[in-house]
């Protein structure tokens, strides 16, 4: 069996550098593109109709604007194979309403009636519609943030308690930093791919939190065990390097199997053209890779860097005392 012997802690500057560079690129994208909050969080309204035959974007825009009295942007998606067949309702049009206000049922009905009147043969039918009041969306977002915060605190407490022997609270905080790193990269994935922040984002973030945390704990467990085996003389760097190398096979296979399973979801979702599935699977694939990376290259080396820093401080303090 292969045993690895990589020097993770010695090259920590490289790994931290890579992470910071990726985060910086994400930030630049974020500044350029901005963040798209889904109407679930920001409030607003979107309706998607299926229809048959051919209509123009300007035409729909005008009808909807007249019927609802609101500015709208219209996107048409035509199925190439059946676009000219008036019997099959395979085309779809999605209408986004300007602003963050919800629209009323009456407005929605008026729009449907107006569309039917102007294009009686197009068989308009609602595929998806969603209209959200802005205050509700915001309170949901805030609630998510608080939930994650509570989770973080409890995790530090648990890790601090279970990993007392290896400086648990520090280990806990380093694990949380690695988690924040993962959440940020997942968030930037949404920004870079221009996907709105919505339910899928929450699901992905939660999953990656659990996943990356598990990865980190497995490595910490090995550090805890090796501290016992290698004795107090081993330096933190030796200890952590050995532990990461010993768990590397497991880290790779576990991440690989999760990645394969989610890639299957992504491919099938793409084939079926389901954006709700692909916008979930794509950031999840990124998250699995990042979660694995952060556990190996960030949490461990960061933990060592912290202890080295503390040791140096203690030494200089002792040196000052003996003077």
């Amino acid at each position, binding site marked *: *069996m292969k045993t690895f012997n990589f020097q993770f802690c010695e090259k920590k500057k490289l790994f931290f550098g890579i992470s910071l560079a990726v985060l910086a690129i994400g930030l630049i994208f974020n500044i350029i593109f901005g963040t798209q909050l889904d109407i679930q969080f920001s409030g607003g309204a979107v309706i998607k109709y299926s229809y048959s035959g051919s209509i123009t974007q300007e035409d729909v825009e005008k009808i909807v604007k007249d019927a609802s009295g609101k500015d709208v942007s219209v996107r048409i998606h035509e199925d190439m194979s059946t676009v000219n067949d008036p019997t099959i309702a395979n085309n779809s049009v999605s209408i986004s309403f300007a602003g963050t206000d*919800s629209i009323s*049922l009456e407005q*929605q*009905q008026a729009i449907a009636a107006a569309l039917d009147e102007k294009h009686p043969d197009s068989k308009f*039918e*609602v*595929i*998806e519609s*969603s*209209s*959200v*009041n802005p*205050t*509700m969306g915001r*309170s*949901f977002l*805030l*609630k*998510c943030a*608080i*939930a994650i915060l509570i*989770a973080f605190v409890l*995790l530090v407490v*648990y890790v601090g308690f*279970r990993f007392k022997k290896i400086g648990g609270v520090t280990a806990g905080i380093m694990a949380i930093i690695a988690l924040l790193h993962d959440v940020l990269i997942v968030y930037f994935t949404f920004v870079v791919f221009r996907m709105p922040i919505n339910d899928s984002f*929450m*699901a*992905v973030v*939660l*999953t990656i939190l*659990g*996943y990356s*945390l*598990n990865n980190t*704990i*497995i490595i*910490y*467990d090995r550090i805890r065990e090796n501290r016992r085996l290698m004795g107090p003389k081993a330096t933190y760097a030796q200890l952590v390097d050995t532990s990461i190398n010993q768990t590397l*096979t*497991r880290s790779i*296979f*576990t991440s*690989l*199997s*999760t990645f*394969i*399973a989610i890639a*299957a*979801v992504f*491919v*099938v*979702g793409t*084939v*079926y053209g*389901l954006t*709700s*599935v692909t916008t*979930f699977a794509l950031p*999840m694939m990124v998250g699995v890779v990042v979660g694995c990376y952060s556990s190996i290259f960030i949490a461990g080396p960061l933990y060592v860097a912290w202890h080295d820093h503390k040791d140096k401080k203690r030494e200089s303090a002792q040196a000052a005392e003996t003077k």
Partner: protein
Amino acid sequence: MKRAKKPVFFIVALLILVFAYTSLFGVHGQNGDNRITYIKGASDIRWGIDINGGVEATFSPDTQGVKATEDQLNSAKAIVELRLVNQNITDYELYVDYNQDHIIVRFPWKNDETTFDPENAIQELSATALLTFREGTEYTDSNIVLQGSDVKSATARMTQNQSTGQTEYEVGLELSSEGTSKFAEATERLQGQTISIWMDDTMISAPTVNAVITDGKASITGGFTASDASDLANKINAGALPFKLVTTNFSTVSPTLGASALDAMTIAGLIGFILVCLMMLIVYRLPGFVSIIALIGQMAICFAAVSGYLPFINSFTMTLPGIAGIILSIGMGVDANIITFTRIKEELNAGKTLDGAIQKGNANSFWAIFDGNITTILVALILMMVFGPTNILSMLFGPSTTGSVYSFGYTLLVGNIGNFIMGVGASRLMLKSISGFKCFRNKWLYGGAAK
């Protein structure tokens, strides 16, 4: 090592497979034309509207900027509930958020629904309640005795029966002055006959007039339970204090879109599972095979927990984040096996005997798996407590407004418990047992060098 007895492998594997089969397909019987479900299978899982399509709407009582009282919200809820049943929508979820004056309703499409108009349905649910008291038990244009505006309030209360001394529940009515005179006239005329009470076009009660009521204070009695009485009082109040329900949020997902999402998830799940099984077999050989059985068991536990397999666990609405929770916990199940088998492989390479390696590998890997799963369970519990129906942040945010994150927490929790039972318990038991067979004692099968 205390080796598990040889038949243990077959017993455990058989139990898992039987459990998996029944939790996937359920157990059904045929009684004439009726299909009886003894045990619910995966086809009985109630899918959330993000998967199967459906309607979600949030209503707020239009109280002109004044905060609605709890009673008002309860009345509004009672009305929405009554109308849902009238529209033949039984599979609904209904929440009230007392802090923010929200009533949230969610219901899926019915299987054979083709002409359902969600906009109309929601409009009917939110229409101003129309309460009438009518002569007799017929709904006609000319038999109205009282209208909603004639009733001041209704309350559910407890009284003691004079003759039997038992506690009884009743609904007390207080009428307006106009209502009092109308009711006095009607009760005098209709003594011993019925005056029925209607919400919209549904009869909600049909009491008999026992006495002439001239002071505008009536009571409706007759074998109510406490909840019956408050239910009726809520409905009457909704008509007595008519306010419009404004629809603040409204979303629909068509059934066709939902159905294809479900198909895609099933196919993706199958492909993903087969790929993972192949990897486990190729990399870990015999233990990999054992882990596949354990994984099937863990998935069966997840299905059983959402479908209502066990009668004492309610069925659960499955949403996309719920599926994400299952994927994560299955991933952790795979991980538990990988950690153990890697440890066994290490020990074999260090020159241990097969039994020694299995024992050492199991022991060494246990706490890693334990800590990893417990931390994830902590996260799942927090999510359930924050986003659940009753939650620890309800002081700040009111009762849950969205079920999707809650279902993630639920499936993750169940999946992780399943991981302890299957990935740790059953998997180890089976491996110890199967390693007792002579033909399975070659170290190569466990990832060591061939003998």
